[in-house]
């Protein structure tokens, strides 16, 4: 396991996409700067090298627009995105896997067919449409949930959280559900397919024959084996989650990193965009490592091997 981790690390960093991307941005950045102050027309590779050097030391430059350190600007927005994404992920995972199990047990019941049709809708409705429709129904027509912003937040150390106030949680429901929707549908379909396959296996029949209670058969014997691909797919989809977080944050004017990225893009605020990309890559790598560890925990072969 440790070896796989190390290999993974080396693999990731050797094929780091971010460096190339930063390079691409650096050439643009250069052009900008040349236009601005005619003194800075160094060759691209010098610029790039300097950029790498600075980035390695945690210096990502200052935002063109606000003249604040780009890293600081993004880190300030990080808690909002983190809370949104984790809530959405938990929602997608619990509801998706839960419903998937329910549906797999009785695939032809009317209610479960309805759930499956819903999941087809779930993967067919783009995130931005889900968000807007939810705003329309719950905020505009029913008026029971707030349509935008983060509501009241509480500062805990450097972390500004919306979990601790009722207002904050109310503001979280719609965006989190919007972000969770697509993943929820994907996980539901995956769990259902996996469960249906596993439930026909011999060892499940053995478990039933032993007279084990249904809960034990379903959760301990069947679901556990289904979880391996489910967790893998969840891990592979982190990138999508972050991408859709940009969409969700835009719709709900959620003060997170994605929202900042979009504004920065409109304003051609390159240092912020570059920093965002670097940081996102770092987050994805970290999450992938966590999934690797989780994977080893679930997979009995590694655990007992």
């Amino acid at each position, binding site marked *: 396991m440790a070896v796989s981790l190390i290999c993974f690390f080396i693999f990731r960093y050797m094929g780091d996409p971010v460096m190339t991307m930063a390079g691409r941005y650096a050439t643009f950045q250069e052009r900008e700067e040349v236009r601005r102050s005619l003194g800075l027309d160094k060759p691209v590779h010098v610029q790039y090298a300097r950029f790498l050097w600075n980035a390695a030391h945690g210096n990502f430059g200052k935002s063109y627009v606000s003249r604040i350190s780009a890293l600081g600007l993004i880190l300030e927005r990080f808690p909002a995105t983190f809370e949104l994404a984790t809530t959405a992920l938990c929602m997608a995972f619990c509801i998706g896997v839960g419903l998937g199990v329910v549906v797999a047990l009785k695939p032809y019941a009317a209610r479960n067919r309805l759930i499956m049709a819903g999941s087809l809708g779930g993967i067919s409705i783009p995130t931005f449409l889900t968000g807007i429709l939810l705003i329309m129904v719950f905020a505009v027509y029913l008026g029971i949930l707030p349509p935008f912003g983060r509501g009241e937040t509480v500062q805990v150390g450097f972390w500004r959280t919306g979990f601790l106030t009722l207002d904050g949680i109310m503001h979280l429901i719609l965006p989190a559900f919007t972000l969770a929707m697509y993943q929820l549908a994907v996980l539901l379909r995956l769990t259902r397919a996996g469960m249906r396959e596993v439930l026909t296996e011999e060892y499940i029949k053995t478990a039933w024959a032993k007279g084990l209670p249904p809960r034990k058969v379903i959760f301990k014997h069947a679901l556990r084996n289904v979880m391996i691909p489910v967790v893998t797919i969840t891990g592979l989809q982190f990138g999508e989650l972050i991408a859709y977080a940009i*969409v969700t944050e835009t719709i709900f004017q959620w003060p997170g990193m994605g929202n900042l990225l979009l504004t920065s893009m409109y304003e051609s605020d390159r240092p912020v965009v570059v920093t965002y990309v670097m940081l996102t890559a770092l987050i994805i790598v970290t999450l992938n490592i966590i999934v690797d560890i989780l994977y080893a925990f679930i997979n009995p072969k590694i655990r007992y091997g």
Partner: protein
Amino acid sequence: MAEKRVKSRMLHSYLHDPSAIVGSVILFVFILAAILAPWIAPQNPYDLEKLSLDNFLTPPIWMEDGEAPYLLGTDDQGRGILSTIIYGCRTSLIVGFGVVLIAGTFGIIMGLLAGYYGGWLDAVMMRLADTFFSFSTTLMAFLMLGIFGPRGVFIVIIAICIADWVRYARTMRGSVLEVKEEAYIMAAKATGAGDLRLLLRHLLPNAIPPIFVVVAVDLAVVIMLEATLSFLGVGVPINEPSLGMMIAIGRNYIYAGMWWMIVFPGAALVFLVVGINLFADWLREELNPKIERRA
């Protein structure tokens, strides 16, 4: 002979799967509407001479204040919603098929080469594919367009292709690796077939079936992606029709209760994607090697 049997079996299962038929009929209707757009749309929403701001924000025809040619109402520029949807679907389908064609072709070639030759080409491609994948197609396309800027449908296609081709390359490579070990490939090699002949005549046709499923699924993904990008304002430019853009405009009027500007284009988009997904579901079951072995 065998080829014919496979085909007739597929036709049989197609005719007995209502969701596959519904899916392909939906897709067909959309394609037809897109091709015939200039003749069936009540007006050309992007012909500035025919636009009149007097008709802006008209509700659908069955509501009070609804007006004659605008069956589903108009937007803030006086464009008929129905006409814009028809033209917008045209954009969606052009981008969808364009990406599938270009990214597919490039990906298949890369996958063939990587799978067949292996070595450094394979190593570089797989590493690239892994990084692209963990970054996700959506994020990559978004960043690409951030660099290019909203300049037209063609740029959107190229940006999505750059992010998307690895999906095909990966599938193709896996499939080639499997087929490469088959006896008939060795037999062809033994008869002295050259690399090119081996690749095109023997590997390509035998390794390609899994790609069809990817194409079907990807078409739906790309259409949603184009709408998302246009919604965010980095996709097609403002003077070209797009479902995503329509919804973005409608969003400004959400509190004014002008639901038709969001609901109709949204419904069109969802119908199109559901249709493709239904068809893709059927195709996946059909080309699943497990099922084929049983038959």
